């Protein structure tokens, strides 16, 4: 009678609503970590932050940038930090990158630690020099069908100090179907002397997040945020002969080092640069380096094309880059002079070159390469 038939659905609906509300409340409580205090280097710096995110991104929001070549995906292992407080045992995602000694010193991957409680941290002083810079892209130029040269200028007349061989992390904003920010590392190709300009060489990786952004979205005049400078790849020693070997986009840090040395007029060592590509259309900067060779007597440029086009008239070295390397080590280089190796490229190329260099008596600790490959 009357509206009695409504009671049943109303009660059921109310019960459902009450339960949903309880679920939402529990969800908020369970996922809310509140404010948390981070104490760095025994209290030298104290930050009050919101919990819930990774240590890497939480510190990044406070302008403390730990190196991260992969943007927090636990694939590069460079975001290490010493966490003095107890945050539980090492996660399976951290183990591939933390050695036994590091485990005992409580070294963790900051991208895998969730900030839930107050933490005591230790960060090496030099990391405080890493900053985020906003740049304007001044030029995007095709060097080969799958490699582009990017030139940027720092905004607001900012300047950056770095060592040749270091890299920067591009901050790739959300684009297309991608909803969150990523970071990827690219070696700086320009020498440190140009304090407010930075050059990069970017190779298209099929399906790659950052390279797809650079190749399809980024335009001249756009803003590109970078985090720099990072990395340990750099020049060593003073008198040893240098054997630089690079392939494709691996050109970048070597180029930075070479032009840096040329600008500083470092003439006390012989430098051989073996630059290997697969086909004629993959070769670039030929004129640039042949020109450098003419102007700088200690520098010898050896471009190598594995399979040159038949009509191109290529008279330079052919085959895999390790072949002319061996030839030079056997015939042209004086045996008694101490030598160093500087390698930049894919893991396969690096391994093959290390083999050749060590067989010719170059010690493993005289061979340097960027480890985030």
């Amino acid at each position, binding site marked *: 009678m009357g509206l009695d038939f409504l009671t049943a659905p109303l009660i059921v609906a109310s019960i459902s609503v009450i339960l949903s509300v309880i679920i939402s409340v529990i969800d908020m409580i369970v996922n809310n970590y509140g404010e948390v205090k981070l104490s760095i280097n025994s209290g030298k710096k104290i930050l009050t932050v919101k919990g819930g995110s990774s240590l890497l991104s939480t510190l990044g929001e406070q302008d403390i940038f730990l190196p991260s070549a992969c943007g927090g995906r636990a694939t590069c292992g460079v975001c290490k930090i010493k966490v003095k407080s107890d945050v539980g045992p090492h996660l399976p995602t951290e183990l591939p990158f933390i050695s036994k000694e590091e485990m005992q010193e409580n070294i963790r991957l900051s991208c895998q630690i969730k900030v839930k409680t107050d933490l005591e941290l230790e960060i090496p002083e030099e990391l405080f020099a890493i900053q985020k810079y906003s740049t304007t892209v001044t030029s995007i130029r095709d060097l080969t069908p799958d490699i582009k040269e990017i030139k940027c200028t720092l905004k607001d007349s900012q300047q950056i100090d770095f060592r040749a061989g270091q890299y920067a992390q591009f901050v790739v904003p959300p684009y297309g179907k*991608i909803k969150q920010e990523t970071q990827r590392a690219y070696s700086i190709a320009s020498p440190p002397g140009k304090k407010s300009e930075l050059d990069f060489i970017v190779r298209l990786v099929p399906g790659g997040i950052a390279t797809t952004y650079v190749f399809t979205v980024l335009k001249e005049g756009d803003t590109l945020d970078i985090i720099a400078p990072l990395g340990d790849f750099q020049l060593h020693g003073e008198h040893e002969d240098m054997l630089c070997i690079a392939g494709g*986009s691996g050109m970048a840090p070597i180029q930075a080092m070479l032009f840096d040395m040329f600008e500083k007029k470092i003439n006390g060592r012989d430098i051989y640069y073996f630059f290997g590509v697969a086909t004629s259309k993959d070769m670039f900067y030929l004129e640039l380096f042949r020109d450098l060779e003419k102007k700088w007597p200690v520098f010898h440029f050896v471009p190598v094309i594995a399979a040159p086009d038949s009509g191109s008239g290529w008279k330079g070295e052919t085959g895999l880059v390790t072949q002319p390397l061996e030839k030079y080590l056997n015939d042209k280089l004086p045996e008694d002079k101490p030598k160093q190796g500087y390698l930049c490229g894919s893991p396969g190329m690096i391994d093959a070159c290390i083999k050749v260099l060590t067989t010719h008596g170059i010690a493993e600790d005289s061979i340097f390469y960027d480890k985030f490959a």
Partner: protein
Amino acid sequence: MKMSPEHTKAAAQMLPGIITAEGFLGDDSRPLPDIIQADEEQASRLGVEWEQVAETLHALRNAGMEGQGTSVEYLRKWNVRVDEARGVLPCPFKDGLFHKHTILVTHKASGAQLVFSELSLHLLETHHFLQGRGSSFRMELAQIKKVLEL
């Protein structure tokens, strides 16, 4: 049907922009375990064995690596080229890291091609996951059968 936490976490990693720009699920609306099960069923229908496929792909990749970016002939049946990029990719199931190697295999007799990466080889071998429909890197079993002569 709700997925186990492992599958839910893996599927979340497979979205665009987390590991690769396009992600691993294409425009497939099926849940991850269903995609894997459907491919497993099709594999048995086609008589394709997962271990055999993985073994052949590994061999092709190793042969291709010798070329350091140039094309290499393998067993006179295939041309293989391995392109390498710097960096590593994590598996969405969080059980390994894989170099960014793209391997292009061309079956000489038919001209049919197959493209795979270190990561997609691992996904095939360990998880029987060939990527969702609509993904540009999805490996179709029929194509695998054709190119690898299985």
